[in-house]
């Protein structure tokens, strides 16, 4: 069978048509913060929010200034958000020997397996923490 540009466009369009049925959105607050801690870790509570009338699944991830993953503890790491609801997520970040640490805490959309999206959204807050003492 001869492959034409039109055939490939059709195949690509077909694979993406299912994703047009559901929009994914999310928000997070706060998106800026300064933390002081006396211990080897600092804690930030963020609130991923779903402002839309359908449920969405999001995950919260922690990155450093260069968007390299940070070994933080996130509880819960994945949350299903009810329509127009938000939920607190606790993020515990180690200083790893530093006296100051800047991190990005990001809420990312997770496409439902039966409705894959081709645009993933990522809302990131910037936080700076100081180790005291």
């Amino acid at each position: 069978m001869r492959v034409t540009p039109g055939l490939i466009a059709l195949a690509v369009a077909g694979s993406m048509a299912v994703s047009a049925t559901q929009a994914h959105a999310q928000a997070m607050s706060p998106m800026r913060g300064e933390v002081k801690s006396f211990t080897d870790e600092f804690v930030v509570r963020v609130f991923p929010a779903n402002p839309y009338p359908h449920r969405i699944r999001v995950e919260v991830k922690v990155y450093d200034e260069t968007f390299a993953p940070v070994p933080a503890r996130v509880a819960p790491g994945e949350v299903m958000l009810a329509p127009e609801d938000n939920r607190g997520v606790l993020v515990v970040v180690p200083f790893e020997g530093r006296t100051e640490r800047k991190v990005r805490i990001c809420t990312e959309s997770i496409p439902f397996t039966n409705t894959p999206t081709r645009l993933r959204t990522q809302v990131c807050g910037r936080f700076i923490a100081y180790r005291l003492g």
Partner: protein
Amino acid sequence: MRTPFAILPIAIAALALAASPARAVDAIVPFTGLVTSTCVLTVGTPGVLAAGAGLDTLSSSAAGGIPGTVTALTTGSNFRISTIAPSNFSIAPPGGGDGVNFSASYRATGATSIGDTLGLNETRLGLGVSILTVNLAAQKSGGAFPGGAYAAEVVVRCE
């Protein structure tokens, strides 16, 4: 010269007015509100890639392709938007993802107005609603894309 008796009717009239219904008393009920500074991203339509005439490019800006759209709502003026191109296809036929370079770009209208911008370049978002148009292109260095279904994900980042 007026006598005290001349003033009396005026005084009686003033007292009569004062005896009318009690004066209203205003009270203030304070309301406070707080809108946190945040960014909301909503995917409008996902994009569609179409093959170029040489079959070695797949692009949403090619004939038959459709760019993706995202709405960004901000309640603060210190947020930036960028897009991150994928490093590979999430769905591709055998050999379809070999030797492929991806590039993403975006432009914005509404609260933010900017023309075509390379994906990793950050743009400060205006306060309010911005409509982002996101394009993706995939260039295959080793010849034509084999026939089949392709899919790739672009990350739209607000921070």
